[in-house]
């Protein structure tokens, strides 16, 4: 192939936005995508802003990083609102997210969390049961209150992916199927090794999620990108009834209703990793546990049928995103959302593109620098 100005590794939402930003600035851009287990393909379209209790429980050491990132999440959700308009509608609805409490302890936890989030500029409020009855009458009787985060929302990821893909094609971005095995600096730029031969570019943006850390190895950093295979469920359609993104103060769940009327139930229940070329395997314990929990929180949905489940890869690092050039290899720019990759993806991609173009990102670059993983 012809030498590209910029090679973007990873054609998910992050890489695609990086590529579009660069192409709009006049660069010749190529996306290479391995076509398997892309997080964007399996995503269920939650726009996460408030701190997720699941994450706080699983990775308590990363909570300070997440807390400091809250304004970043909020800006990322705003970016999706802009994209919704630019792309011509991705069924984005921003009625806010509810995090439910079943016990006074859980409600107290949410009150404390809401205070911390309000300090970071989020629009949050604690609702009692009476207030919940006004906006979510389908909730089970044991829910005593909830935190409402107005910055949150939901969108249709399949539609967004399709429109983004069309936008990238229209921008003249070359897209090739393939997997990059390694990167090397050359006299004139960067060479990416693939099974089909080397690819040359002036710069490379690594938007390869859980595969990104491996590509940065050997450049003085060790970025601990981990694949986290997660499980999701979707029901047949029902009348539009659930307006919010629904989560729980203590348990792993996300629940929302798409524009199609279908309810998507997920929230981080594990799937079984089966290697890089096969989708993760659905576990019975996750299917049963996740859906049963949904039925307990929202008994009104229990007459609906689940018509499909799937599993896909989430990526975790240290709670914060990795955005920036590799120290000593400035032509290689990392673009990895820290968590909630689909929410953060467009923002992270555009910031990485700005760095490649030598522009400012609008956020303190130190917070996201790959140099924090120097070895």
């Amino acid at each position: 192939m012809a030498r590209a100005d910029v090679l973007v590794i990873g054609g998910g939402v992050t890489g695609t936005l990086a590529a579009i930003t660069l192409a709009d600035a006049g660069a010749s851009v190529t996306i290479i995508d391995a076509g398997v287990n892309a997080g964007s393909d399996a995503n269920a379209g939650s726009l996460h802003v408030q701190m997720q209790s699941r994450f706080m429980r699983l990775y308590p050491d990363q909570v300070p990083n997440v807390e400091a990132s809250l304004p970043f999440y909020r800006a990322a959700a705003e970016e999706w609102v802009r994209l919704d308009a630019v792309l011509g509608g991705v069924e984005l609805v921003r009625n806010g997210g509810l995090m439910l409490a079943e016990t006074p302890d859980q409600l107290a936890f949410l009150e404390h969390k809401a205070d911390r989030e309000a300090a970071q500029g989020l629009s949050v409020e604690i609702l009692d049961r009476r207030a919940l009855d006004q906006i979510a009458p389908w909730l089970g009787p044991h829910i005593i209150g909830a935190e409402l985060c107005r910055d949150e929302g939901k969108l249709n990821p399949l539609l967004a992916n399709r429109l983004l893909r069309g936008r990238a094609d229209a921008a003249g971005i070359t897209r090739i199927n393939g997997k990059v095995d390694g990167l090397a600096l050359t006299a004139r730029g960067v060479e990416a090794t693939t099974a089909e031969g080397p690819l040359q570019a002036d710069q490379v943006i690594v938007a390869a999620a859980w595969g990104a850390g491996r590509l940065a190895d050997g450049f003085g950093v060790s970025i601990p990108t981990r694949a986290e295979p997660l499980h999701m469920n979707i029901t047949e359609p029902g009348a539009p009834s659930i307006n919010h993104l629904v989560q729980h103060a203590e348990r792993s769940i996300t629940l929302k209703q798409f524009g199609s009327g279908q309810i998507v139930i997920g929230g981080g229940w594990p799937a079984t990793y089966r290697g890089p070329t096969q989708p993760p395997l659905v576990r019975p314990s996750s299917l049963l546990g996740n859906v049963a929990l949904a039925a307990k929180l929202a008994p009104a949905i229990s007459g609906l049928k689940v018509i499909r489940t799937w599993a896909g890869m989430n990526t975790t690092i240290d709670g914060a995103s990795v955005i920036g050039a590799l120290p000593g290899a400035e032509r290689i720019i990392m673009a990895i959302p820290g968590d909630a990759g689909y929410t953060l993806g467009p923002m992270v991609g555009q910031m990485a593109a700005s760095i490649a173009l030598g522009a400012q990102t609008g956020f303190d670059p130190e917070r996201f620098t790959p140099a924090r993983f120097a070895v």
Partner: protein
Amino acid sequence: MTEITFTFDGHKIAAREGQSLAAALTEAGHRAFRETAKSADRGMFCGMGVCQECLVSVDGMPNLRACMSPVRDGMVVAKQAPFPEFSGAHVAPSAPMHLSPDVLVIGGGAGGLSAAITAARAGADVVVLDERKVAGGQYYKQSADGSVLDAQQQEGAELLATARGSGAEILSGVELWGAFDPLLFLAQQGETAIVARPKTAIVATGAYERPVMVPGWTLPGVMTTGAAQTLWRSYGTLPGKRVVVCGSGPLNLQVALELARGGAEIVRLAERAPHPLQRPFASLKMGVAGPSQTAKGVTMELALRRRGIDMRNACELVGVTQSGSELLATFRSAAGVEDTIGVDALCMNSGFEPQNEILRLLGAEMGYDPAMGTLRCHTDDAMHTNVSGLYAVGDCKGLGGAPTARQEGIIAGAHAAAATGHGDAYDLFAARRALASHRRFQSRLWELYDIAPGNAATMPDDTLVCRCEELTIGDLRNGLEGKPGHAGTLKRSTRVGMGRCQGRYCGPVAARMVAEATGKPVEDLSFFAPRVPIKPVAISSILAAEEALYGEG
């Protein structure tokens, strides 16, 4: 039979106890059971719980399949809205049923019942799960009231009676929705969650019918030939007064005759393949391979001719439209001449698709059979798959018809019993000999019909392919422009296969289209990835299963 009454959208309807809701509605002249998101009407299509098109609301509960639901006195039935209000749980979960038999047989048709009889007689503890009200499967279709119509139904009744007497436990009305490694099965029977952890499992889930995808094939009143046969054989209901039967294969011949004898006017029987006599050598080979079956076929054809039925070969359905209460079906002859006939019901069958979801989910190895256009499950001589303890018999493994399924069932039943310490699975020579003979006849038979999958390239752009998501072949063609490397990619970009039927009709079409566009051979991995649930499952059922398995309050 007891007369009962119920209402459908306010109309009072008389029915017979034991009828399915779909049969009772059809008999009363109602065809449109639900409205789609795009405001189209849909009715019963597959008649066997696969297509999920015949959904109605019963006593305020939406999403019930009319074809699988028995009619009850006084029930209030309504046409299903595209986005029904939440209704809470269908059922209050009752105590779960835990099963751990030596041999679990999934599917109580020809293959499954034969397997169960053999395994139970060898001394194994056997449970059969069957989804219908009465077991017997699609070939032996039993009547709801126990009456017997003909020799085929009699043969099935005898097989079922033998199975019941063999010591095997037959559970009817069971919908199996979950299959997990190592041999964990989740199912629902009425209000009861079933958790099965058998030592061995024999999958005998049969096949469903391949449609003739033409513009209009989704109209109410268009149904599979097997669906019409179930209406008649199981419930004594004719699909309509004026009926046309089309597609390819001997089932069309048989059902046309059955419906004609039942009093329907068969306006036309259109077979896509040329008449067998135009291929005398192939016909002769079939006659030699299966003299009695061939004689049966000839007798049926003569009986149809005696009734003066318009039988046409090399005659192809090209489209269906609705005009008032009438369906207008347009056919094209080999010479390219088109004509249109008006009917109440159109029956179509163009071969079969194996119900191999459980096998694929559990990782059984599959190969593609291009002649039939289906996957075939690889098994050894014992019908054992590559997955430990998992056997496959009958049409779900690879199409072969009921007589083949029976012999495969006998072999698998004996081996599964032996694997659990019952019998030695030694004396199977007669079964193997009979199996070889049936397979020989089957391969000769299908050479005479045109059941290779239709060529998607010749379908008009406006032909619906994905019934659930209401996508046309044109939509899929547009989707191919994004150069999807896999059917799953096409699924995500177009939503093909994302509906309630889980891609059972559009999936094979999408898999072949993508394979052709990418220049790759069709194989197991070309199809949509197998996923639970195998059939849509109520959240309340999942809750019940979770409580049964993990006991969480």
